[in-house]
């Protein structure tokens, strides 16, 4: 236990970096994912094609491969961020990689939520004389947003866990910090790794609770 207390500043710094990766990844992939979902639902065929290829490509590539590409191959191409120290550069690259990797899952979550709305809802709205804008804003979207929340929170929980992969690519987040701590105190591996587990659970369990709560609060009664 003393090894954890000794290395607490290190682990705490790693935890903050994990949170930062999660925050950037969540915001970025929500924006990008919404865009991709909109493209995939659009009536313009080339837009759908681009979005489909993007989704299938990234979903079938391991995250480790994506982050390896950003940490190793991108600098090899001479595209690494300039004017920052290497720590920050790797952090930026990992954040971009996580955002890109997560966005198709967000897009799929949104799409499946929207698809789950029975077509009768739109038919009913149209038949009582609502226009396109009214149908969308008064009938479809209020239901779609509720349906979309549980799958999106699932994706975000996965994102928290996925930030750990960045630890393998020169970012000192929780996993990176725990490796440094283990190098310093090899006799206390168990205590250090269990404390890292507690840090992760401190984020994932509240997110899971939030999901159950929101699901109950905004459930669509049918």
């Amino acid at each position, binding site marked *: 236990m003393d090894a954890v207390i000794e290395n607490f500043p290190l682990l705490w710094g790693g935890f903050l970096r994990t949170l930062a990766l999660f925050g950037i990844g969540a915001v970025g992939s929500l924006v990008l994912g919404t865009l991709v979902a909109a493209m995939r639902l659009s009536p*313009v065929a*080339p837009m759908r094609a681009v979005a489909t290829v993007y989704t299938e490509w990234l979903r*079938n590539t391991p995250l480790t491969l994506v982050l390896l590409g950003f940490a190793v191959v991108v600098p090899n191409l001479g595209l690494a961020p300039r004017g920052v120290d290497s720590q920050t550069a790797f952090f930026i690259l990992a954040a971009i990689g996580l955002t890109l990797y997560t966005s198709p899952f967000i897009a799929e979550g949104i799409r499946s939520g929207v698809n789950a709305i029975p077509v009768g809802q739109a038919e009913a709205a149209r038949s009582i004389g609502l226009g396109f804008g009214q149908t969308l804003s008064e009938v479809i979207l209020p239901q779609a947003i509720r349906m979309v929340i549980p799958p999106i929170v699932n994706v975000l929980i996965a994102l928290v866990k996925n930030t750990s992969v960045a630890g393998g690519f020169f970012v000192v987040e929780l996993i990176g910090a725990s490796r440094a701590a283990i190098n310093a105190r090899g006799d206390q591996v168990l205590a250090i790794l269990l404390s890292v587990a507690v840090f992760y659970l401190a984020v994932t369990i509240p997110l899971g609770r939030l999901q159950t709560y929101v699901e109950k609060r905004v459930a669509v009664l049918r």
Partner: protein
Amino acid sequence: MSTSTVLYDVPGPKARRRAHIVGVVIGLVVAAVVAWVIVSLALPRVGADGSTRPGYFDWSRWDVVNDRAFWRAIGNGYLGTLRMAGIAAVLAIVIGIGFSFLRTARTAIVRVPTTIVLEFFRGMPVLLMMLFILLVFSAGSFWAGVWALAVYNGALIGEILRSGVAALPRGQREAGLTVGLTPLATRFLIEFPQAARNMLPIIIAQLVVLLKDTALAYIIGYGELLRQVSNLSNYYGEQYKLSVFLIVLVIYLATNLLLSWIARVVARRTGPGAGRPRIPRRGKVFATQALPTTAIRTRE
């Protein structure tokens, strides 16, 4: 298209023309991006020391593909990935079956601790579990990867199977008990086969995720496919890094797309409604495409 547009009227000539223009613009943008990538890859590279290297389409970047040893190394890496995924998948299914039984046990003494353990495993990054097994149990990197993947995915498959059993009509269990089977025999002989069959597509989707996650073993130093990117570019030289990376990327994509396709076929053949004539679906509010089964992933 005609069935899908409940939201707006069938597009007239103006709207069609507008959609056409948008399509052309997007095509141009995509073509421009692709062209930019190709041109910038083809340009010669200037190193930090001022030396220039040929662009990425130069043969000197790709001539390793003539080397037999190169492909042997790639093949070995691929076998390493498949071996880890195969063993971990079998173990994950066994562990998942075990978890699903313990989780639905009738005594709370078994059920409650199992639920807590399951929640714990599901909230953990797989990489942390790999490190844990590697360092605490001092297993080799292969078995650390296998067991971490098996336990994590076993926890998820257990939940999938449990929800499969829960989704069965109650009459199934009641019928089993009525003909004199014990509760355990009812579970094994009546409920479980049906649940496994219904949940097969989701389980296969989870196994695709497992295959993808074997790449995590790269970080703990196991010699799988991804490891070959750094191994081979160390051995043959940095100029081959992108080439090896692209080859590995294509192998992963091909394998995963194939497995996802198998999952879709299995879903059609064995899922609910298989064997009945397919009824044309009613149009969706927005989409013009059917939702692929692989969208029901339980973990991304």
